[in-house]
């Protein structure tokens, strides 16, 4: 059909094939967006309306569902999630960058072993370690505390953080630190004044990746935390559902509030997330 047209003109013609593909892309976009859109709209409906009027807009917009959800539990899950995520992120950045600093600057047999030891952690899966972890945390008396989540999140996120940070640190020119040493800068000073400030983009990537993980982690959050007051959002939502029974509008409002911060953050910082995910996926 379009062969002659295509070869004679510089620009591509929008043919029948492209039309079908466009329709396909739009249909797929609707499949992705509609459930999310439905969640937001239905979060302002009453139970009756969710049940009887699946497609329509609410007759009265029950914005108070959000206030109810917030006061009935979401607020405490939120605070817990923020606490756990913040401590995890700060620790991963600090501990990870310190390790990456040494692993990027020193080369001995022992350092090579440490590198394999730390990065090799990426191959280990939390699912497999679940039962022994539960026992270890019990004997440390950390079960049912936020530290059970924080310590395990740090441990399972460090390998990726070190991998990304070390690769970036290796690209920092040696001359910089040599002149810093001549100026009398200590080893710690080189880490703090040269390596950290020069690595801001990759540190943001690590922050985004780690908070994405800590905010959404479900398995540990469900099993290591028993009491409702300490639960983070992902596992708290399950309790929330069971407590509300048929108060679906409030449940949906809680779901929207739980998802919103990460979605907003990631829309703006998507570049960093995608970079981290794609570099982190190429292991070895």
């Amino acid at each position, binding site marked *: 059909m379009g062969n002659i047209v295509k070869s004679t003109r510089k620009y591509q013609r929008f043919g029948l094939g492209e039309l079908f593909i*466009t329709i396909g892309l739009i249909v797929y976009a609707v499949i992705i*967006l509609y459930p999310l859109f439905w969640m937001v709209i239905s979060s302002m409906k009453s139970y009756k309306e969710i*049940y009887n009027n699946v497609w329509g807009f609410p007759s009265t917009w029950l914005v108070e569902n959000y206030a109810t959800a917030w006061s009935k539990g979401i607020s405490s899950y939120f605070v817990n999630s923020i606490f756990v995520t913040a401590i995890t992120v700060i620790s991963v950045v600090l501990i990870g960058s310190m390790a990456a600093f*040494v692993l990027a600057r020193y080369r001995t047999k022992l350092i090579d072993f440490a590198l394999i030891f730390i990065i090799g952690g990426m191959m280990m*899966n939390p699912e497999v*370690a679940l039962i022994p972890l539960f026992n*270890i945390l019990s004997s440390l008396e950390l079960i049912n505390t936020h530290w059970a989540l924080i310590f395990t999140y740090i441990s399972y996120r460090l390998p990726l953080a070190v991998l990304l940070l070390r690769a970036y640190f290796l690209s920092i020119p040696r001359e910089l630190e040599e002149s810093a040493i001549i100026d009398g800068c200590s080893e710690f000073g080189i880490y703090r004044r040269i390596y950290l400030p020069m690595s801001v983009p990759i540190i943001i990537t690590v922050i985004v990746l780690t908070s994405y993980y800590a905010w959404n982690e479900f398995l540990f959050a469900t099993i290591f935390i028993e009491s409702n007051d300490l639960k983070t959002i992902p596992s708290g939502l399950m309790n929330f559902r069971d407590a509300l029974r048929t108060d679906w509008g409030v449940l949906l409002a809680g779901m929207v509030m739980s998802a919103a911060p990460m979605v907003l953050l990631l829309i703006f910082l998507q570049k960093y997330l995608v970079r981290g995910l794609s570099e982190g996926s190429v292991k070895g």
Partner: protein
Amino acid sequence: MLGVKRMLRKRSILIPVLFLLPSIVFLTTFVYFPLVQNFYNSFFDFSVFSQKKTFVGFENFKNLIGDKVVLTAIGNNFKYMIISVILQVGFALVLAYILEDKIFRKAAPILRVIYFMPVMVSISVIALLFGFIYNPQMGILNSFLELIGLTEWAKPWLGNSSTAIYAVIAMSQWQSIGFIMMLFIVAIQKIPQELYEAADIDGAGKIRKFISVTVPQVRETIFVNTLITVTGSMLVFNEPYILTNGGPGFSSITMSVHMYQQGFVKDNMGYASTIAIVIFMITAILAVIQIRLSRTGKGD
């Protein structure tokens, strides 16, 4: 310069030790030690609530062979794997190629964000949302089928033992296709433009260019993404746990859910450790393949 190098070398070993120590401690305590512990545990019979362990030898492994639920679970993990590889690797690659096509240059940035959006939403929110979508009375899936006149297709998706696992798998695809698509987009953007121009001169069409330029150029990413998807399918826990808890019966159970139920619901911690070893073996083999492939890739 030599002086500086010597100074570098002479620096005390205090900093390297201090800087590495926290990472080593964390990984030893919470990543490697549990793994060893898990092997040890699989030879014992014990409970969540007590520290007492009874040695049972290979009893747990014998039980594993006779456990029919394990077969169902592995079967479900394989269904997960096959469908995920087709859709998350195959379809996502085609999708990435289309979005990188010049003709969709204007729409691509918006579509990328839309397709990627479910990745950003936590799995618990998505699973609860799909609980509503699949709801037999008011779910939007059944309502939609009625709307377009396919009333006889409507069914209790999660309550039916022949559809439950597929409903769970479908939700995973909905969430994850955008993620793998994004990894492919990053890979496709690195392909030198000259290769496509050369193909243009040869008169290659879009499908031809996809097969002869894009696919071979992102071969490495295809391998890596396939392994991510396969490993993920073998470990999957959250989706079946939240949506169906493995039910109805054991129809949508996976290995991780089976492990969880044996350990934390039925309190057979020793047997659950044995199931964990099976999961570990499967994923370890996949990890070794992944390392091998990424090494050979570097030689290219």
